[in-house]
């Protein structure tokens, strides 16, 4: 499915909620997140994509596309997100080095790093189609 599509975020919600390890790691997290994938016209990504989800005590209660009010906003060019999903860039390093721009309380976000790491592992299992130059990247392997 197409990265950051409605179908994708619904799948993300399902995958996160059905994983015991993620539920445990995210326990106590009640926040909402907006993930902004900024365009890279020179790499064939013409448009910005925005997805979001809200979590209540570790359970994803809602996932959507488009912008709305959230506790955190994480933004980066499309390719940075692809690198994270590919495993070429660690999500925590991406945050602390500002490759991923964070708006909201960074320390609070970093304190939930176990669930972030597990989330990335889980997203890797979703067969995902990327745009432009990233079309050749293939995901969809089993989570460890």
């Amino acid at each position, binding site marked *: 499915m197409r990265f950051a599509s409605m179908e994708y975020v619904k799948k993300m919600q399902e995958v996160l909620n059905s994983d015991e390890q993620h539920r445990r790691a995210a326990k106590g997290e009640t926040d909402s997140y*907006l993930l902004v994938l900024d365009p890279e016209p020179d790499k064939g990504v013409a448009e910005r994509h925005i997805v979001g989800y809200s979590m209540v005590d570790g359970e994803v209660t809602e996932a959507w596309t488009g912008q709305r009010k959230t506790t955190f*906003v994480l*933004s980066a060019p499309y390719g940075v997100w692809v690198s994270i999903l590919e495993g070429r860039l660690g999500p925590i390093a991406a945050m602390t080095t500002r490759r991923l721009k964070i708006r*909201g*309380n960074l320390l*609070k976000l970093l304190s939930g790093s176990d669930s972030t790491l597990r989330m990335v592992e889980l997203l890797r299992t979703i067969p995902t189609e990327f745009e432009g130059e990233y079309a050749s990247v293939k995901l969809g392997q089993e989570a460890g």
Partner: protein
Amino acid sequence: METMKAAVFHGQGDLRVEERPVPEPGPGEALLRIKYCGICGSDLEAYRYGLYEPGIVIGHEIAAEVAAVGPGVAGLAPGDRVTSNDIVPCGECRYCRTGRVSICDAVTMPGVTCDGGFAEYMTVAARALYRLPDGVSDLQAALTDPSSNALHAVNRSGLRLGDRVLVIGAGPIGLLIVQAALLAGARRVFVAEMNETRRCLAREMGASEVINPEVDNLDLAVADLTEDQGADVVFCASGSPGAMASTFTLVRKGGVVVPVGICEQPVAADFLSLVMNELDYRGTYASYDEYGLALDLMAQGRWRTEPLVSAVIPLEQIVAEGFEVLLQPGAAAAKILVRP
């Protein structure tokens, strides 16, 4: 003994209009006949939380006429139109001597620490008075105090020509800060406000973009308006802890945040961003010298206050049509003036 009507503070949520003796001006004091007295955000806080001394007549945003002067007062005569600084400094402490008058060690504040202007008459030290320039109406002059406070907030921020500014909260102070920031040379002023009426006022005061943070993601909106940098200066004129907490990543690296509103609740401060981004947080309290500036700007037609006046009410209605209206959640009213 002559008496007058005055709104007397009796504690939390208890303000009563009572008969009081008309005060006598002491040495160095003037007796003022009040034309208008504005209800300030700090009066609302005091009413809600009981922050003032019981028994005082509150109100400090005044436009008045001199009714009489006490012994030793030169240069003022009955009939002179005036406004009063809400700070009467000691003039001797280290802060007064270094120009930081708003944080004077031994300040007197009419309407806060002694009787003020929600009354037919009040007395005040003549040295705290400013004569109104011709062309400045009494109604305009009643907003000298909040205007001066807004100018002081911008002075405290160190705002520079070309800065992009975010103002969170478009109550009277937020709206006046928009105007002050533009005068100080802001390239653009963005305003975040949930109330529709106040958003319209923000546009009228010159905000280039007005954001409803309930509908639009404020972080994202500000990022988009600043090439992902964040605002150079953020004024937080909202008492919401969430709004205050959001300032840490709405401001650019090395930027300045000026908290103007007072949060009663603790704020989840993001000290990691404060340290890593070398942020400056600068408090601002009241004002002093900016009174003269505010009046001069009004006289020149470079400072607007009329759009902010949402109602003029009689003193008898100060609670029902004033305090209670402004304390309603989501109140749209900007400034309510009391006319004794």
